[in-house]
C-alpha cells in the first residue's frame, strides 16, 4: 500500500480552517481536533498561530468551564481566514494544472 503523503503545515492550516468553518457559531478545540485528526495539544499551537495572524477568531464560551486552565474557548473563521482558504485552494488548483504534486 502506498503511504499517504505527509500533510505540510500549510495543508494542516487549511484543514483546520475547513473544519472550523463548519461551525458558524464557533467550534470547541476538542471537536475541531476530531475533524482535523490532530491531538488537541498540537492543534492548540496551530490554532493560536492562525488566531495571531487573524485567520481565526477566539471567543470565550464560559469563564468558569475551563477550570484551572482558564476560560473555555471556541473558534470561528474570520473573513481573512476564508480568503486564505480561497487562495490556498486556487493555488493548489494552479499547481495541479501544472502537474505539480500539491
Amino acid at each position, binding site marked *: 500500500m502506498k503511504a499517504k503523503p505527509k500533510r505540510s503545515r500549510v495543508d494542516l492550516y487549511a*484543514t483546520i480552517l475547513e473544519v472550523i468553518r463548519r461551525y458558524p457559531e464557533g467550534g470547541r478545540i476538542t471537536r475541531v481536533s476530531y475533524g482535523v485528526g490532530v491531538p488537541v495539544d498540537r492543534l492548540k499551537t496551530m490554532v493560536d498561530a492562525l488566531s495571531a495572524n487573524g485567520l481565526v477568531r477566539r471567543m470565550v464560551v464560559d469563564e468558569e468551564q475551563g477550570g484551572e486552565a482558564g476560560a473555555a474557548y471556541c473558534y470561528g473563521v474570520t473573513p481573512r481566514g476564508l480568503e486564505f482558504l480561497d487562495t490556498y485552494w486556487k493555488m*493548489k488548483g*494552479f499547481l495541479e494544472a501544472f502537474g505539480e504534486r500539491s
Partner: protein
Amino acid sequence: MRMSDVRVERGRTARLERVDGELWVGSNAKITAANGKAVTVSGGAHFEGSAEIACDFECESLKVDRGKLEVAGDLTVRGNADVAHTVEVEGEIRAKSIDVGGKVSSKSIFCEGSINVGGLMHVVGDLEAGPVGVGGKVDVSGGVKITDLDVGGKAEVGGGSISGRVRVGGLFASKGPLEFGEMMVYGRCALPAGCAGRKISTFGKLSVAGALSCHQIDVEGVTEVKGDCSAANVLVNGKLSVSGSMSVSGALESRGSAEVKGEVKGADLKVGGRFRAERAVLSSEADIVGELETERGMKAKLVTVGIGSRCKGPLVGERIQLGASSMTLANWGGTWAGQSIAIRAIGRMTSVEDLYAKEVVLGKNSRCGRVFAEKVEVAEGCTVEQVVYTTELRGPIRRAFFSRPPEKAASLPSFPL
C-alpha cells in the same frame, strides 16, 4: 434524572426494549434488544463515551460526548444527532439533522435537514439530505439527492442530484451522471458522460468522460470534455479542450487556449488567446485578437481581426475588418493568458488566409490570401494574393502589394460554410 429515565453504567451490558424517558449510557457500555430487534427511547439518548448498540436504535435526540458509537442495525433519530467524535452504523441513519465532529459511516443516510461533519463521511449506499458540509472527505458509493455540498478535501459520489451549490476544495468525482446547480471545484473534478448543471467554475482540472451540458462554464484551469459540450456562455481563461462539437447559445470567450475537435456553433466569439476548431459558425460577431485556427473556416456576420493576430482557415462574413486596434478588442483587464498573447501580437503583421464577405476592410500592413467581396478597402502596406470584387475597390491601391492584379467580376464564387 426522572424515575422513568434509564442509566446504563460504564462497561455494563443492558438488555432494553422501550425506554419511556431519557437514556444515559456510560463509556464502553453495550446495549442489546430484549426483543432481539430494536430499542426505542421516547426521549433523548446521551452517551458519555464509546458504546455499542447491537440492534436497531430509535430515540428523540442523540448526543455522544466522546469516543465511537457503533450501531449494528439502523439508527433513527427523530430530532438532532450530535456526535462529538465518531459514529459507525451498519444499517441506515435517519435523522432531522446530523452533526459529527470526526467521522460518520453508514449504509445509507436520510436526513431532512443539514449534515455537518468535521472529518470524514463514508456512505455505502444512498445519501439524501439538505445541505452537506464536510471538512475532510466524503465518499458516497450510491446516489445522492442533496441541496448543497461543501467539502474541504475530497468528495466522491455515485451520481444523482445536487440542486444547489457544490464547493469542493480538493478532488470531486462522480461515478454516475450528476445534475448540479452551481459547481465550484478548486482542485480536480472528474465527471462521467451525461452530466448537466447551471454553472461550473474550475480553477484546477475538470475532466468529463462524455457530453457535458451546462448553462455557464468558466474555465480558469484546465477543462477536458471527451464528448460534445453545450452551454449558454463559456469563458476560458485557462485551457479548454473538447473532443466533440461545441454549441454555445451566447458568447464564447477564449482568453486562454481553447481547442474543439469538432464544429463550434454559437452567437459571439471573442478570442484573446488561442482558439482552434474544425469550423466555427457564429450568428453574430467574432473578435479575434490572438490566434485562430480552423480547418474548414469560420463564419460570422461581423469578423474583426486585431493587429498582429493570425487566422488559419478561410473567414466568411458580411463584413470582415483586418488590423483593428488590439487595444479596443483585447480585454486588458483579463487574465495573464489572454494578455500575454495579445501583447505578443503587437508589432506583428495581421495575417489571415482567404476572405469571403460582402465588405472587406484591410488595415495597414495586413497580409491575406485571396479576397472575394462586393466592396474591398485596402490600406498602405497591405499584401494580398488576389482580390476579386464586384462593386468597388478603394484605398491607396498603389501602396498595397498584390500578387495578381485586382479583378472586377460580375459575380463572386459561392462562399464556403
